[in-house]
């Protein structure tokens, strides 16, 4: 349906919902590359003005990506919960933004969190396009999503971390050294998660056994994950591997997911396999998904109704529509990984990280972020610091951390273990409760609950160093 908006005396026309959503999106390089970005600042505001007056319920009748062509659209609409939607069913997108901000200011987590099954990715994406960074933080921190397997994640006042001990050749001792380094700095409560250098079933099995042994030996209340393709994890399950979490990268369109080699049936099968192992102690969330703005465009799988290019932030929110179907323990966007052709500079990465966290949380996901960048983007450590602290303020479920900010396998920069400590201490946040208790048992915390600066002959350091010298 054709819609018009006027700004500065000029009228702009938006032929379909696809253009309206794209033109309303804050500037980012990926939308320029796709050819769907607003052509001027005024056109962007005109689109936002039209979007603000659009009834939220429009998204139930009018699609961005077609129902018949795309299984993500079908999954979202077929599982939509009208009862959960009822409290906001009569609002426009602009009124919905105002309502969310009012609930957030009043600390009304119940009203915000209860909406999730009634919201679609497009509704949430549209709302985020009207929000400033501070709005995304204020509402994001009041969307409560609690999950668990052997640690409990998402509780108020907590910030967990994924310990990412990657190694260029998956060398067991090298991986163990990075695990020990992270544990000694209070990281790893969300997951100890390894990106394997090669996607081989034997390698995956060996890494799963390695982390399982470390977790068992020291009684660490956390879970492991080897971020292999879901079909590799299925084979590991068949081989009797200790699989805590089934991992998969997912995207917001059926062709993009096909490009990843995944179908909804495959994910259902793998989740059932992990669930059957019964490895949880405090919960039974057994999946882990990664996403990132630009993934559909990079696979040339970013088109919607009539072959029109869909903006990358709307497609990212649709990826969350896939993830939430599988009751994940954790989900994260890898926000600066994909490169400057999708998110050019620190400003764009910062905004995208906050949007992704907000949209994920509103849709009911335990949302974390890999705060990261590549060397050819206009981004540096200061940009990462700003994003990690804002995410801490936004109640982000977890952050990813690597030794010294340098992932020596994937060749990009993420946060250092110490950055997680900084975010926790600046904002008064604590690790997951079971993990915090373990840190205390290991004598890794001082009297104020801070992770100690260790000497090598401290008992915990001795014990963990022994693992790395085995």
């Amino acid at each position, binding site marked *: 349906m054709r819609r018009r908006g006027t700004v500065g005396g000029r009228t702009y026309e938006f032929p379909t919902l696809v253009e309206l959503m794209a033109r309303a999106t804050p500037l980012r390089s990926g939308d320029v590359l796709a050819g769907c970005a607003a052509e001027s600042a005024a056109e962007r505001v005109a689109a936002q003005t039209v979007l603000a007056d659009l009834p939220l319920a429009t998204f139930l009748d009018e699609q961005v990506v077609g129902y018949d062509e795309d299984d993500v659209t079908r999954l979202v609409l077929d599982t939509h919960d009208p009862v959960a939607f009822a409290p906001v069913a009569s609002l426009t997108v602009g009124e919905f933004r105002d309502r969310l901000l009012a609930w957030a200011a009043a600390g009304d987590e119940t009203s915000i969190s209860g909406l999730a099954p009634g919201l679609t990715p497009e509704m949430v994406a549209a709302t985020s396009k009207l929000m400033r960074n501070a709005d995304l933080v204020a509402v994001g921190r009041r969307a409560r999503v609690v999950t668990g397997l052997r640690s409990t994640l998402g509780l108020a006042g907590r910030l967990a971390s994924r310990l990412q001990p990657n190694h260029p050749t998956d060398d067991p001792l090298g991986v*163990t050294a990075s695990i020990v380094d992270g544990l000694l*700095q209070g990281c790893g409560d969300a997951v100890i998660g390894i990106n394997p250098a090669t996607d081989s079933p034997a390698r995956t099995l060996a890494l799963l056994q390695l982390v399982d042994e470390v977790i068992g030996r020291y009684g660490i209340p956390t879970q492991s994950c080897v971020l292999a393709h879901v079909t590799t994890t299925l084979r590991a399950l068949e081989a009797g591997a200790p699989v805590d979490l089934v991992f998969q990268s997912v995207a917001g369109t059926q062709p993009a997911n096909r490009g990843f080699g995944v179908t909804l049936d495959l994910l259902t099968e793998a989740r059932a396999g992990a669930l059957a192992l019964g490895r949880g102690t405090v919960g039974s969330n057994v999946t882990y998904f990664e996403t990132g703005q630009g993934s559909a465009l990079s696979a040339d799988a970013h088109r919607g109704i009539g072959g029109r290019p869909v903006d990358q932030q709307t497609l990212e929110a649709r990826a969350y529509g896939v993830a939430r179907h599988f009751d994940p323990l954790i989900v994260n966007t890898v926000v600066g990984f994909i490169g400057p052709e999708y998110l050019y500079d620190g400003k764009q990465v910062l905004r995208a990280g906050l949007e992704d966290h907000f949209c994920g949380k509103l849709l009911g996901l335990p949302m974390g972020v890999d705060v990261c960048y590549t060397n050819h983007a206009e981004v540096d450590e200061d940009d990462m610091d700003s994003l990690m602290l804002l995410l801490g303020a936004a109640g982000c479920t977890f952050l990813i951390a690597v030794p010294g900010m340098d992932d020596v396998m994937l060749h990009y920069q993420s946060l250092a273990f110490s950055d997680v400590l*900084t975010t926790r201490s600046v904002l008064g946040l604590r690790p997951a409760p079971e993990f915090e208790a373990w840190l205390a048992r290991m004598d890794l915390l001082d009297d104020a609950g801070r992770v100690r600066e260790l000497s090598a002959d401290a008992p915990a350091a001795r014990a963990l160093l022994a693992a790395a010298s085995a």
Partner: protein
Amino acid sequence: MSSALDAPLPPGDDPWAVLRAATRARVALGRAGDALPTARELEFRAAHAAARDAVHQPLDADRLRPTLGDFLEVHSAAPDRATYLQRPDLGRQLAEGTSLPRADTDLAVVVADGLSPRAVHEHAAGLVTALVERLPGWSVAPLVLAHQARVALGDAVGEALGARAVVVLIGERPGLSSADSLGVYLTWDPRPGRADSERNCVSNVRPPHGLSYAQAADTVAALLGAARELGASGVVLKDEGPALPTG
């Protein structure tokens, strides 16, 4: 738990050395409060600065002429570095009005800045020499130096020159520990629209840390021979061709 905590310390003066010896990852850095100590922070910045400078240093044709010999120069449709980084599509097209003389040769060689002009400055001449030495029976078009170029720009260059195959030597995305790595991409029957799956790649040419010029040239020459026999490059060639060195 108490038994684990009673573990003996690893031998040696510095027990943390156990961690450092096990991986190239930046482990056991110590802390200043909840942050990195100054010296470790500055080490990281130095590595990032080298990578940033490698991306943004302009490709210097005058510097290359003494070692690379004569070459033709072309520019992609990306007018500057900022555009190049945001518009990979423009980096794959020749600038409007570009003309190249038709050579009708077996091979065209394109030296492209890619994401690390520094890699080109340091390694292109050595690799081109080593490669041409290994192809005595091949007619080779005049060398082309390409500015603000992506790999696929070689398709347009190869087609314009009338070459049966194109080899693109291109600066790879700099990592923190490798700002000067050169990649080599081979495409049989080059023309715009070729898919990445129709190319073969040899990456990490970066002596003395990565592949040597001789190692890389041996592999590329073998691939070229196989591609000529098969009349194709890419996945098909990889499957049927000789085992390729890794890394």
